[in-house]
């Protein structure tokens, strides 16, 4: 079809309009097709939400419908009060924000050293960092747990936040970006008598807001969704993060599927908000770093 227009340029003008229309129709048809696929794809979430609104005895039905005999919004408030869900969400945000902050500070400082300073063993040390990128975190949970236990940190926020703020990924990502920034700016600043820290803070970082926000968002999500480590290191409900709280809920309310789905919906909502607000950073982050999937 495109070759038509190319090989017979003279007739372009007259044939353009139907062709254009055809293209438009095709585009819309294509869009409709992907919309259907997307709908099927997101169906589990849709079903989750509608199940959350059903009376318990209608969750399993041989002729399933979206809306049950009544719409029970109170399932949400029941789920919220049966377990301290507000507490879980607070813990989730508290841990994730502090964790993301710590990760960023560590990454920026280390990346600065690795990209701007000369010191012995720099490249070898960096290689060591890079090697740990492929290390599955699960290999470390037993010794980390024993360490936390010996330090008396089991069942504390510190145990949730600190051990995973030092992964090489942040340092690696920030270093890659530091390397893209020409040295001239900093040299000028350094010659003017600014300290290194000042140069880093007011010359380098302002140019790196995009990667910084990417790192922040991904650290946040990593902490927020983390499950295995909190499962191991947290004993009390008061310190549970959202996934752990949700699993506690399932332990106690194994059959109350409508309440469980209400709780799951509540757990999913903050993530949906994050996607809605920060989709650009997310896409960029995945495209550049691609690490969040781990």
């Amino acid at each position, binding site marked *: 079809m495109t070759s038509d227009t190319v090989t017979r340029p003279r007739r372009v003008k007259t044939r353009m309009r139907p062709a254009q229309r055809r293209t438009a129709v095709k585009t819309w048809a294509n869009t409709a097709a992907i919309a259907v696929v997307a709908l099927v794809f997101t169906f589990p979430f849709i079903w989750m939400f509608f199940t959350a609104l059903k009376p318990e005895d209608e969750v399993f039905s041989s002729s399933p419908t979206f809306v049950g005999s009544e719409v029970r919004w109170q399932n949400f408030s029941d789920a919220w009060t049966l377990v301290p869900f507000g507490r879980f969400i607070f813990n989730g945000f508290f841990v994730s924000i502090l964790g993301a902050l710590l990760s960023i500070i560590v990454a920026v*400082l280390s990346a600065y050293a690795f990209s701007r300073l000369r010191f012995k063993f720099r490249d070898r040390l960096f290689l060591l960092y890079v090697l740990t990128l492929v290390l599955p975190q699960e290999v470390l949970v037993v010794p980390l747990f024993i360490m936390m236990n010996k330090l008396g940190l089991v069942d504390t926020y510190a145990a949730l936040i600190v051990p995973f703020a030092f992964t090489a990924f942040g340092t690696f990502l920030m270093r890659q970006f530091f390397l893209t920034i020409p040295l001239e700016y900093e040299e000028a600043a350094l010659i003017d008598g600014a300290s290194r820290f000042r140069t880093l803070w007011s010359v380098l970082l302002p140019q790196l807001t995009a990667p910084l926000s990417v790192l922040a968002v991904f650290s946040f999500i990593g902490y927020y969704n983390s499950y295995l480590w909190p499962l191991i290191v947290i004993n009390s409900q008061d310190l549970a993060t959202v996934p752990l709280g949700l699993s506690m809920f399932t332990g106690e309310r194994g059959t109350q599927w409508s309440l469980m789905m209400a709780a799951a919906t509540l757990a999913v909502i903050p993530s949906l908000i994050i996607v809605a607000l920060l989709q650009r950073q997310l896409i960029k982050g995945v495209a550049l770093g691609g690490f969040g999937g781990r």
Partner: protein
Amino acid sequence: MAISTSPGVIASSEAVAPAADQPAVRIPTPAGKKKKGDGLTALAYLAPGFTGFVFFIVVPLIGSLVISLFEWPLFGSPTFIGFANYEKLFGDPTFYTVLLNTVIFAFVYTAVNLALALGVSLWLTTKLKFSGFWRVIFFLPAITPMVANALIWRLMLSQDGLLNSLLGTFGIEGASWLSDSRFALLAVITMSVWQSFGYNVIVLSAGLGGIPKEILEASRVDGTSAWNRLRFIILPMISPSLFFTMTMTMIGAFQVFVQPQILTQGGPGESTNTFVLYLYRNGFVFDKLGYASALAWILFIVVMLITALQFAGQKKWVNYDK
């Protein structure tokens, strides 16, 4: 062994961040005039990160090896037992089952994941309205808590769940997807692919976006078939992205834990028990931290081996020059 993979890792580091045009070889410093290094300053900047790195990564990694030589209960004092944990491990039939399950999971999951991700990201390059929006949609499950995602799948796949009642309306009697050893691992894989292929859609979309339009246009003019275009132009051009997604997806696959834990508890039998689930249970449910550490080290070695193999294989098909 870890050291032998090093050149490969560096090679991938370019794939990791295509935006970094500067190769990571020589790093000029602003204080280039000085002869001395910046040792002390570097120490200051590195101290927080490096302390943490040593304390939370290097020490535990070595610690894991040490712990694996002990019988180490959660409460009480450990006893040194040499390599007994490893001996026990190699005589433990569940270990082999779990290893096999995880390897099957990893390969099938990675293959399906990449195929789907490639398909969808190619689709997203066609003429579409709101293509950015669709890309975000496919990405959704990847950032919602996996525990919540797994729960809804458990509900849908349970014996009298949605899937079976839908099949029922067509007169088909559905299987017990989560209790039948023929289907349980498949169910876990399906849920996992749904959960996370959106990540790879985005990575591959970025790779596809990097292909110059002119090249594709030109090939269209040549009358190259769509298949050949994919095979000889698109795939080679996005091979670094493909390689990267493949490696990372594979590493991620070996860490599978939540899905079997929530969907099947590793059952029926051991048919969906995975390495990390077995590791977690041995350490924190069965009170055998030493044995769990031995498992952890085997996991470490397996992942390193597979990653090394992937890096060794990349020379055959990954094309870094654009």
